[in-house]
C-alpha cells in the first residue's frame, strides 16, 4: 500500500511495516533494557533485506538507542572516561578488523551465511546461559542465600604489562585487558551489527572488576562511539548503511521504547529474564530454520528486463 523504496537495500517495503518493526524493537529494548541490535538484524533478514545491509543499518540504530542512555549516565557522573576511552580505542580497532573480515567474506560470497551462522551461535549461547543462570538463581533462593562472591582475586591477568590507573573505577590494571575486551566488542559490532552490551557488561564486571554503577554508563559510552565508528566504516567501505531504513526504524523505536519502559516497571526481574531468554531462543530458532529449511522454489524463471 504505502510502499517505500529503500535505496541501499534495493527493495520496496511497506512504510508501516518498518515503523511497526521499529516500534516492536523499541518496546522490547525499553522493556528489557537492552540495545536491540540483536533483534534488528534477524528481523530485517526475515523481511528479505540482504544480511550485509541489515548489519550496517542495525548498527546505525544501535547508536540512536544508546546515546540517550550514555548522556543520562554522564550527567550522573557514572562514566569512567579513561577506562571508556581505552575500551573504545580497542573497539574501533576491532571494528576496523571486523570490517576487513566482512569485506573479505563478501568477496568470497560467504558473508550472508557467516552473519546468519554467527547469530545462531551467539543467540543460542546467550539464551542458554540466561536460562541456566535464572534457573540457578531460583534454586539458590529456595536453598536460601548464597555466600558473597570474592571480587578481587589475583590471577595471571594482574601480571600483564602496561599497567594504568583508573581512578573512577578504583582500579590499577593492565591496559591490555580493556583493549582486548574492546577489540572483541568491535568485531561483534562490525560483523553482526550489535552494540555488544550483553558481552561487554559482564566482561567489565568479572574480568576487569569495575564497580557495577560505573560499568553501565561506561559501556554505553563505549558502545555509542564504537557503533558510530562502525556505521561510518560500513557506509564508506561497503555502502551497506540504508539511511531510510535506519531512520524509519529509529522513529518507531523511540515511541516503542517509552511504552516498553513503562510496561517493564510492573514486571519482576526473574519474569523479565525468563521472557528475554525465550525471545532470544525463538529468534535463534527461526534463523536456524531459515538456514536449514529447503527453499520453497528450487529455481524460478523470469523474463530478463535489460535496460538500454
Amino acid at each position, binding site marked *: 500500500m504505502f510502499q517505500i523504496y529503500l535505496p541501499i537495500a534495493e527493495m520496496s517495503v511497506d512504510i508501516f511495516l518498518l515503523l511497526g518493526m521499529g516500534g516492536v524493537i523499541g518496546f522490547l529494548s525499553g522493556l528489557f533494557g537492552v540495545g536491540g541490535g540483536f533483534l534488528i538484524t534477524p528481523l530485517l533478514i526475515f523481511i528479505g533485506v540482504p544480511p550485509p545491509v541489515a548489519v550496517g543499518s542495525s548498527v546505525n540504530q544501535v547508536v540512536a538507542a544508546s546515546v540517550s542512555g550514555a548522556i543520562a549516565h554522564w550527567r550522573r557522573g557514572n562514566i569512567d572516561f579513561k577506562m571508556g576511552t581505552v575500551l573504545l580505542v580497542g573497539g574501533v580497532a576491532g571494528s576496523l578488523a571486523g570490517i576487513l573480515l566482512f569485506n573479505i567474506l563478501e568477496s568470497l560470497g560467504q558473508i550472508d551465511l557467516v552473519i546468519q551462522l554467527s547469530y545462531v551461535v551467539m543467540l543460542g549461547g546467550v539464551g542458554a546461559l540466561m536460562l541456566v543462570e535464572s534457573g540457578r538463581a531460583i534454586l539458590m533462593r529456595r536453598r536460601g542465600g548464597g555466600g*558473597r562472591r570474592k571480587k578481587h582475586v589475583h590471577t595471571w591477568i594482574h601480571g600483564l604489562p602496561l599497567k594504568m590507573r583508573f581512578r573512577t573505577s578504583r582500579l590499577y590494571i593492565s591496559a591490555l585487558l580493556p583493549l582486548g575486551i574492546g577489540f572483541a566488542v568491535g568485531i561483534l559490532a562490525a560483523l553482526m551489527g550489535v552494540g555488544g552490551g550483553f558481552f561487554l557488561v*559482564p566482561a567489565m564486571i568479572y574480568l576487569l572488576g569495575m564497580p*557495577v554503577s560505573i560499568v553501565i554508563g561506561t559501556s554505553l559510552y563505549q558502545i555509542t562511539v564504537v557503533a558510530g565508528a562502525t556505521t561510518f566504516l560500513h557506509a564508506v567501505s561497503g555502502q551497506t548503511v540504508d539511511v531510510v531504513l535506519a531512520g524509519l526504524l529509529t522513529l518507531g523505536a523511540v515511541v516503542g521504547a517509552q511504552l516498553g519502559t513503562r510496561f517493564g516497571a510492573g514486571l519482576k526481574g526473574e519474569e523479565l529474564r525468563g521472557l528475554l531468554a525465550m525471545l532470544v531462543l525463538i529468534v535463534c530458532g527461526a534463523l536456524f530454520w531459515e538456514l536449514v529449511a529447503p527453499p520453497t522454489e528450487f529455481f524460478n524463471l523470469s523474463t530478463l528486463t535489460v535496460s538500454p
Partner: protein
Amino acid sequence: MSDDTSTATSRASHVAGQVKFLVCVDGSPPSKVAVHYACKRAKNTEGRVALLHVVQPADFRQWSGVEEMMREERRGEAEALLQDLAADVNGWAGIMPELMVREGRIGDEILSVIDEDRSIDLLCVGSNPAEGRGKLVSFLAGHLAGRLTIPLIIVPGTLSDEQIVNIT
C-alpha cells in the same frame, strides 16, 4: 506491612518521657543537618534516634549475576554511609542510633517503617532551601500528609550549628 486498622491508635510501645526520632538520610549535607537537629533534641529529651536510608531497587539487568552485584554494591554503600553517620550521632548525642536500610520506593518505605516500629514518635527530614522543594519533601508534604500518623519535621540544610543548639 503490619495491619492497617491500628495505625491510627496511639503509638503502642512509646516509653514515657522518651522521644524517638526517625531521620531519613541520603548522604547529602541537608540530611546530615537533620541528623544533627534530631540528635540535639534527643539528647535534651533523653530520647533515641533511628537512621533510615532507602536504596533504589536495582534496575533490571539482562544477567542476574550483574543485577545481584549491583544490589550488593548499593547495600555496601548504604552501610558505609550509615556507619559514618552513626559515628556523628555518637559524637552529638552520646548514643548509638538504630540503623535501617530498606530497598524500594522512598515514600512507601518510610511509611512502612513507621507502621512497623510503633515506638517512633517523630519523622525528621532535611531540605535544601537553595534548590526549592526537594523530591522527598514534596512527596511527604503532598502525597503522604494524609497517611502520616506522626509529626513531620523539615530541617533546612542551611541551619548553622549555633541555630540548631538554640532551637533544641
